[in-house]
């Protein structure tokens, strides 16, 4: 067993519920203190909740550790504590080595500055020294494939170019410990792969990586060990295949893996299944259509101007299809959202649904549906792989000769 580079014990973090809304005004605080000076010294906390409770963790050197769990389970809070963005309320951790954190794509980028200037700025903010950036600059630029545009202000960049530059800077960060949150979910697939490759190099060089992701495929591909965080506590730790499948199983059960920290959410998606065609496996599609998919949604408080989005991605995170419905009114209770599709000609691979619900422009729930959609339709396409496309259409062929 190699040495532990991160050792955490009893990490806990308490937040005030709706901290932003209630504590916003100095005027109010002063008024409270004037009205009742003694209460200012009493520790009568407003409504609080534990985003993280008693988490102990050891991460060994050179390990790639996955962190999974539903939205609001505390994964990001844990990552934020380990990267020192926020302090724990209780507990402590010890980290051995330089820590780099990637919680966002393009941290510190400023639109008015050129690619070159932003490389230096973002690099410095992420923890590189000037010397280090100067040394790696050419490599970063060629990695991002932006040689021609490096002196253009990035406000003129396309979103693809922006992401490429951001990743290139991040990928060249060489801390002993790298904390990554979901950032690889954006960007085009080819470039993502390049970054993952670079990260793989990082791991092979004896560096330690903690990766938070909703994409279980990514976790499976990259992580040796996985920690499943649920309601602010560690539910399971172990080898990736075991933890991920336990997680998938729990998420498909009606209770969708706890998640009490999100108790204040107005609604949340619980599960999904294929209604039509009916079969033994509710997440396996064996026909090109017609198809009906149902998503179970639990509504806790009324949705007045709901906007509901659905997207289907393949395992390589390419968008297959997306749609959205506006002006939904939903009363509290269990709902079933049913999408009927006359045909869904997908290649025999695995896919992911992404469901979102918005109310009055505010995100209520974003769900990376588990389990994945397994498509077991026979492949109707060209016999050679390089001539296989997105659509798996059964075709009929006939030659007819015009008479006359």
């Amino acid at each position, binding site marked *: 067993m190699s040495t532990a580079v991160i050792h955490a014990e009893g990490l806990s973090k308490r937040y005030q519920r709706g*901290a932003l809304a209630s504590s916003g005004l100095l005027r109010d605080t002063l008024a409270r203190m004037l009205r009742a000076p003694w209460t200012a010294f009493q520790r009568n906390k407003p409504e609080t909740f534990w985003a993280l409770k008693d988490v102990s963790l050891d991460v060994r050197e050179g390990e790639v550790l996955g962190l999974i769990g539903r939205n609001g389970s505390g994964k990001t809070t844990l990552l934020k504590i380990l990267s020192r963005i926020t302090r724990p309320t*209780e507990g*402590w*951790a010890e980290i051995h080595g330089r820590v780099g954190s990637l919680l966002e794509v393009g941290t510190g980028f400023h639109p008015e500055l050129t690619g070159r200037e932003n490389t230096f700025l973002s690099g*410095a903010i992420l923890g590189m020294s000037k010397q280090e950036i100067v040394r790696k600059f050419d490599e970063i630029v060629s990695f991002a494939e932006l040689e021609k545009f490096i002196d253009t202000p990035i406000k003129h960049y396309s979103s693809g170019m922006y992401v490429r530059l951001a990743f290139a800077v991040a990928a060249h960060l060489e801390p002993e410990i790298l904390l990554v949150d979901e950032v690889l979910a954006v960007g085009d697939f080819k470039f993502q792969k390049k970054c993952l490759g670079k990260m793989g190099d990082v791991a092979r060089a004896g560096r330690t990586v903690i990766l938070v992701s909703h994409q279980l495929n990514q976790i499976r591909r990259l992580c040796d060990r996985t920690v499943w965080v649920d309601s602010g506590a560690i539910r399971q730790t172990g080898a990736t295949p075991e933890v991920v499948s336990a997680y998938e199983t729990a998420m498909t059960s009606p209770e969708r893996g706890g998640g009490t920290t999100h108790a204040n959410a107005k609604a949340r998606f619980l599960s999904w299944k294929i209604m039509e065609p009916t079969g033994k496996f509710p997440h396996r599609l064996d026909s090109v259509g017609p198809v009906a998919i149902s998503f179970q949604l639990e509504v806790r408080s009324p949705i007045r101007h709901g906007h509901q989005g659905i997207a289907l991605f393949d395992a390589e995170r390419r968008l297959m299809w997306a749609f959205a419905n506006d002006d939904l009114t939903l009363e509290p209770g269990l709902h079933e959202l049913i999408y009927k599709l006359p045909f869904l000609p997908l290649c025999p691979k695995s896919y992911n649904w992404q469901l979102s619900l918005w109310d009055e422009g505010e995100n209520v729930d974003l769900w990376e549906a588990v389990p994945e959609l397994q498509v077991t339709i026979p492949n109707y396409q060209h016999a050679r792989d390089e001539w296989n496309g997105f659509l798996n259409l059964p075709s009929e062929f006939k030659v007819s000769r015009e008479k006359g």
Partner: protein
Amino acid sequence: MASATSNPSATSTLANRPPGLLTLRIEPPHTLFELRLKELWTYRELLFFLVWRDVKIRYKQTVIGVTWVIVQPLLTMLVATLFFGKLAKLPSQGLPYSVFCFAAVVPWTYFSTALLAATNVMVENQRVITKVYFPRLILPFSAALSGLVDFCIGFIVLLIFTFAHGIRPAWTLVLLPLFLLLAVFTVLGVGLWLSALNALYRDVKYLIPFIIQFWTLASPVYYSSSMVPERYRWLYGLNPMAGVIDGFRWALTGTGHPPAASLFASVGIVGVAVLGGLLFFNRMEGSIADRV
């Protein structure tokens, strides 16, 4: 928060740890008295980059760029000369009123813009604060320092302007950086408090214009401090910017009187404000990332 020192009792938990790496300890905030200036020094390169960014962006965004930095204090001076010099005929210590006024407007412009920038700096960098760690203390410092570039440009104009009026700087000019330093520390002394408060309370930003306006009137920018009645002079001396401006004028032109006793009071007050500001800021830092 995490201190970059190895703690022998704590590191024992990491058995066989690789040698030569630094150990961070992450803990709940517990001590009341943390200055953490050492960490600021470790991150000095980032401080430089943030100042550099601020300056770059300022000159890129404004259409007229650098000229704005010159035009703004010049216009202020012209208008003041017209109303306070020509109409109100305020005394100006034997200097042409325009020189008298301009010598105060240049350091005052630095002070007011830097204070405003320091107040807003946490809110403006909210995204970065919530996504990556660095000592947050860097931000108010960067705001206080990036204003110095504007100041330098304004100061060159001021030198030319005084020269054109036939006033030759005296030996006292060498003391001028000291007064500038006092101005920087005054920005920090107030800015550290306001930046943390502004991050935590949304209504602080409405307070700032009022504070600055009030402070302008309470400082000898447009009038001479000798107009303040003798028995209130001590009270006036509590305003460090009064000492800065008087000292600035004196150092530049050699006329007027060097601020003496009140200057010591100013230095003392600023010292206390900066120290208190550092403690307050560090204490609030923990909640800033959660609440900003």
